[in-house]
């Protein structure tokens, strides 16, 4: 089974702290994604990466950065956490950037981040 593992299920951080959210997948997928999910807004794409050291901004990249040093690991970084970044963060990976066809995205279990 494909596994996408996020390092923490729950995280509480203080305003201004630097926060790292880690995601690891074990299926040798090229593409990895970070989303945040907020009530009433659904899932929104923050950043995605289609290869090691390659990254692209999604719809809401402000306040975030990412790192993809190894194929299996995609990190989301909050340089200076703010209360409006309190959210559920979901990592996903897929074999192809094309999410059509027989390709599907596999999601991690999510990290619920609270910034106080």
């Amino acid at each position, binding site marked *: 089974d494909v596994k*996408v593992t*996020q390092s923490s299920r729950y995280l509480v951080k203080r305003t201004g702290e630097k926060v790292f959210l880690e995601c690891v997948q074990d299926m040798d997928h090229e593409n990895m*994604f970070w*989303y945040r999910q907020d009530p*009433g*807004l*659904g*899932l*929104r*794409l923050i950043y*995605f990466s289609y290869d090691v050291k390659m990254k*692209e901004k999604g*719809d809401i990249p402000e306040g975030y950065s990412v790192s993809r040093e190894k194929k299996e690991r995609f990190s989301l970084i909050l340089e200076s956490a703010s209360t409006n970044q309190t959210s*559920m963060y*979901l990592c*996903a990976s897929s074999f*192809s*950037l*094309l*999410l*059509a*066809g027989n390709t*599907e*995205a*596999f*999601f*991690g*279990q*999510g990290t*619920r981040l609270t910034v106080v």
Partner: protein
Amino acid sequence: SQELEQSPQSLIVQEGKNLTINCTSSKTLYGLYWYKQKYGEGLIFLMMLQKGGEEKSHEKITAKLDEKKQQSSLHITASQPSHAGIYLCGADATNYGQNFVFGPGTRLSVLP
């Protein structure tokens, strides 16, 4: 940017009842995905539709994509408490996969 709408926003049904959730786009979709999320957990892939008029079933869940590829419905037959959760539709808004979007979700509760 591409937007997906879902209706209803939330749904409460008695166990054993049938229900339908809809997902609508103003633009042609290149792939339509249905996911289920249990509260506070990750997403579980249910099924994917690509061709106009396509219909897929898995256990008691059936998903359809209309001929214009702008609307999809998810139908659950004889609902059970295990069906409870948030159902999200997601779609490729382009044919190169760089604009994958999700609907806002439909929260389903099934009363025993």
